[in-house]
């Protein structure tokens, strides 16, 4: 193996464990390839660094240091490569076995509880992920509608006093598919739901019922009749849960083309 002079400066650093990343990989590869000069330099560096601490003055050793370490050895058994698993069990006293059993049981209980807790946590996170994915799909659809140049837009304004709710209907003239968006509408009381109506020639046709989130927001996909007239109007009323064939409740939002 050819010696490379550029590695010479690296050897002492390698001996000290200071090389990282590419430099480390490179020098190890070079040494593994059998460069005798670098190998010899490495041994020299190791020799120097092994002996260097000898230049230091002896400081008084802390009192009882050896005892403290020996005490700690009592609870930290060394790894014994040559002992078998049978030796291990044979050497365990009943006290340790009982203690070991108790500790094992405690660990099992802990793991079971932790597992249940983690499963619950996982379910919550899965639900959260599903919600987020659904929201993302909705937002992608909304974005597609907004970006579509063939989309008509109808604004629905509040028909109730002191209510800031607003609605918007985006409607693709080519496909007759639409997207209805509502914001800040009051939460419906128990057993009630909002219903969207398309009104043409004074005749209302249900476009569907929709739920709202806790902020009073909602988005609903709708399909309009082919070729809606220029005079078409839209309204949102509060109806009994499930909706009604004809509007019966108060009108909350209204708009026309």
């Amino acid at each position, binding site marked *: 193996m050819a010696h490379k002079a550029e590695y010479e400066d690296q050897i*002492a650093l390698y001996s*000290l*464990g200071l090389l990282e990343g590419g430099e480390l990989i490179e020098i190890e590869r070079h040494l593994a390839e059998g460069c005798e000069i670098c190998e010899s330099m490495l041994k020299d*560096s190791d020799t*120097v660094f092994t002996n260097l*601490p000898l230049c230091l003055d002896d400081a008084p050793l802390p009192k009882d*240091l*050896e005892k403290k370490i020996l005490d700690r050895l009592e609870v*930290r058994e060394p790894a014994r490569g*040559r002992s078998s698993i049978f030796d291990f069990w044979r050497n365990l006293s009943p006290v340790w076995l009982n203690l070991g059993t108790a500790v094992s049981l405690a660990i099992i209980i802990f793991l079971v509880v932790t597992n249940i807790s983690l499963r619950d946590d996982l379910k919550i996170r899965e639900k959260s992920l599903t919600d987020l994915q659904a929201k993302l799909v909705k937002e992608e659809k909304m974005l597609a509608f907004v970006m579509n140049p063939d989309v008509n837009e109808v604004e629905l304004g509040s028909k109730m006093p002191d209510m800031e709710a607003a609605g918007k209907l985006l409607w693709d003239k080519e496909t007759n598919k639409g997207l209805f968006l509502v914001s800040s509408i009051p939460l419906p009381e128990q057993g009630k739901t909002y219903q969207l109506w398309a009104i043409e020639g004074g005749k209302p046709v249900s476009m569907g019922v929709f739920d709202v989130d806790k902020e009073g927001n909602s988005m609903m996909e709708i399909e309009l009749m082919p070729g809606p007239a220029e005079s078409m109007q839209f309204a949102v009323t509060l109806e009994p849960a499930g909706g009604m064939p004809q509007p019966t409740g108060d009108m909350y939002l209204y708009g026309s083309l």
Partner: protein
Amino acid sequence: MNPGSPPSIDKDPELNTMVQKPKAFAIMDKGSARSADQELIDRLRKGDKSAFREIYARYSQTVFNLALRMLRSREEAEEVVQEIFLQVWNKADSYDSERGAISTWIVNIARSRSIDKLRTLGYRDQTTELIEERVNSKSDFSRIIEDREESRKIIREALDSLPDNQRIAIEMVFFEGLTHIEAAERLNEPVGTIKTRIRLGVLKLKEKISPYVGDLL
């Protein structure tokens, strides 16, 4: 004698005698040293505490000196020395006498644990993980430890013989636990310059101390 200024080998007749007889410190040949190391580790692996006490007696002073020099706190050094010897006890299986001497292994562990402690204390942020695993030297200061004072003189003499810039660079990376990059920043020198200073310094140190450990290489 002032411990900070060791005698010159050239001027000290006693040391001069030792230079003429470099093997005076070497009490075992390489083969027997290696087998003695292996035997000690084998006993340690079996949980033989007398082997542990032997290792402690042989290396505790040097390891404590090194930890104290690096950490500059007796309290921290004591804690680190405990960790070092616990690691020796628990990781005896990872030592292979064919790869190097026990002393090199233990010094590497000592530096590594001390640097870890420096990092914990916020004095540096780079880990040094490889040094304790890679043991390549067959030199073992335990062979010359029979006379600590004489060993100290020789190593100090060697260190003090270096040009200041080489000595400082080596002391920074070895005793202060800095990386060569940190040393370069501190000295406001290019990293390449620091690398070269360390290499040249190590080369000179090796020349100075090899007569005493040469038969173990």
